[in-house]
């Protein structure tokens, strides 16, 4: 039978964390499932959700919180999460040690820079609530993503929000020593939100569940291989985009895996799985933080139906 064509969109550019997708494609894991997957870069999670929801793409990789917001704003269940890749949100508040922001409480009255669509900035009320800060305790400075680390390094702002692995590396490339950086991940500061998930369009789930299952299976296999040997996985990133700095992307990949993929929860429940209780709380938390008018049900947002059997998903 001819391979099913699958249009897949990343949430962002070709970087280290995209390794499992590229690996699965290059090593023929998708092909083994009878899939012909094309991989396109994205411009952000919201864009990826929109792309899949509109039917322009079949499967995507996007922040679960963007999915929540999308579903709350335009109910209709066009997209569903099928495999929770990042068990925790990578969002974090990052500051320089010299500004003496040692605890979340020290943030009160400070200026934070972030793009207005940044997951950390949108999720800030949840972070604030968990750490007994008023939601309006900080002043926000809106900037383009690549600019926030520059402003922080120059001391124009006191802190930034961003994905920990991205911002730390960006700061280092601006001449900041790793030991000068303080990272406060949302995940370790009481925020229960999930991170990036595989999303599939409802139409695909309805019409070709086999395709979804095959994709997830192949991805799971690639993710485990990536966890086992990130050095080898990142070569696929380099192959896709020869311009990347392989060492840098390897660090980014390792940081991402360590922070968001390998967590106590995934160690016990396996990769891709979610805890229904936590999920309910996480959705509630995000809805409140984002100021959404409705709280979508967990079943609408996520289905575990396509997860491979637990043993296959287990990691050491």
């Amino acid at each position, binding site marked *: 039978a001819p391979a099913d064509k699958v249009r897949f969109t990343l949430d962002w550019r070709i970087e280290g964390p995209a390794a499992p997708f590229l690996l699965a494609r290059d090593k023929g894991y998708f092909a083994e499932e009878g899939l012909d997957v094309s991989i396109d870069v994205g411009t952000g999670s*919201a864009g990826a959700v*929109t792309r899949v*929801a*509109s039917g322009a793409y079949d499967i995507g990789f996007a922040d679960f919180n963007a999915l929540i*917001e*999308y579903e709350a*704003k*335009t109910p209709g269940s066009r997209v569903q999460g099928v495999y929770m890749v990042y068990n925790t949100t990578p969002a974090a508040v990052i500051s320089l040690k010299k500004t003496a922001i040692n605890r979340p409480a020290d943030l009160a009255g400070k200026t934070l820079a972030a*793009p*207005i*669509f940044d997951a950390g900035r*949108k999720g800030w009320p949840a972070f604030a609530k968990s750490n007994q800060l008023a939601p309006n305790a900080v002043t*926000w*400075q*809106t*900037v*383009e993503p*690549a*600019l926030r680390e*520059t*402003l922080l390094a*120059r001391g*124009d702002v006191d802190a930034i929000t961003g994905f920990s692995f991205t911002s730390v590396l960006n700061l280092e490339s601006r001449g900041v020593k790793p030991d000068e950086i303080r990272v406060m991940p949302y995940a370790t500061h009481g925020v229960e939100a999930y991170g990036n998930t595989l999303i599939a369009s409802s139409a695909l789930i309805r019409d070709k569940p086999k395709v979804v299952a095959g994709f997830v299976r192949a991805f799971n296999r690639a993710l485990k291989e990536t966890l086992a040997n990130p050095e080898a996985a990142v070569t696929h990133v380099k192959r896709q985009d020869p311009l990347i700095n392989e060492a840098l992307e390897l660090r980014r990949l390792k940081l991402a895996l360590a922070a968001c993929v390998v967590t106590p929860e995934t160690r016990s429940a396996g990769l891709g799985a979610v805890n229904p209780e936590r999920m309910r709380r996480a959705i509630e938390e995000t809805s409140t933080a*984002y100021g959404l008018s409705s709280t979508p049900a967990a079943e609408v947002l996520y289905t575990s139906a396509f997860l491979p059997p637990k043993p296959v998903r287990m990691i050491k």
Partner: protein
Amino acid sequence: MPPSLIIRAAPVLLLLALLGVWHLACTALAIPDFLLPSPMAVWHAGVDAFDPIMMHAQQTLLTTLGGFALAVIVGLLLGIAVGISPLIYRACYPLMVGFNSIPKVAFVPVLVVWFGIGTIPAIITAFLISFFPIVVNVATGLSTLEPELEDVLRSLGASRFDILRKVAIPRALPYFFASLKVSITLAFVGSVIAETVASNLGIGYLMMSASSTMNMALVFAGLAVIGAMGVVMYAFFSQAEQHFTAWAHRGTHAP
């Protein structure tokens, strides 16, 4: 309806027609709101957020006009220099073309770091993006001056500056006004783009903020406001053009 009235109402009618097509397309093709909101949705979004939109629009208008004013001055001066001096023409033109092929958004971060977040980078971006059409058109207008008209002044022993002021520039005015129309639209683009990169104010910020909450109707309301401001500025230059270059358009009004 008498013909002159049709002509007057034409832009409004065409606008309504386009809105109608847009509306029909949205409903008929069931285009989801998050992709392309219908005109009604945009209208409601605009009305609901009227006050903030006006505040942001004011900021954008001011930065745009600031950048545009700079562009007119620099564009005129550079255009004159390029138009009258073959050396400057050869030296500067290729570089300006090269520079203008580059998306100005790439420079905004640098500007932000130097001038801080806010109005100044937006003004500079608006300037950088909009001066080139003025240069090109003014230079072309000057270099296509009929030598016969120039000779009238030359025979009087006029200085180069006199010739410029009395013949070359008036003759190049139609070119200049044509470039203003292009330039003002680019100035809007420039300031809005700069605002999307780094600003807490302006239509660019409003659009980013709206799109981050998937409020596409508000994004399009912002776009509509920019478009409207562009039209107002155009109307203004159009008046000026009619006043200053009626002689060149004399053929158009013939019965």
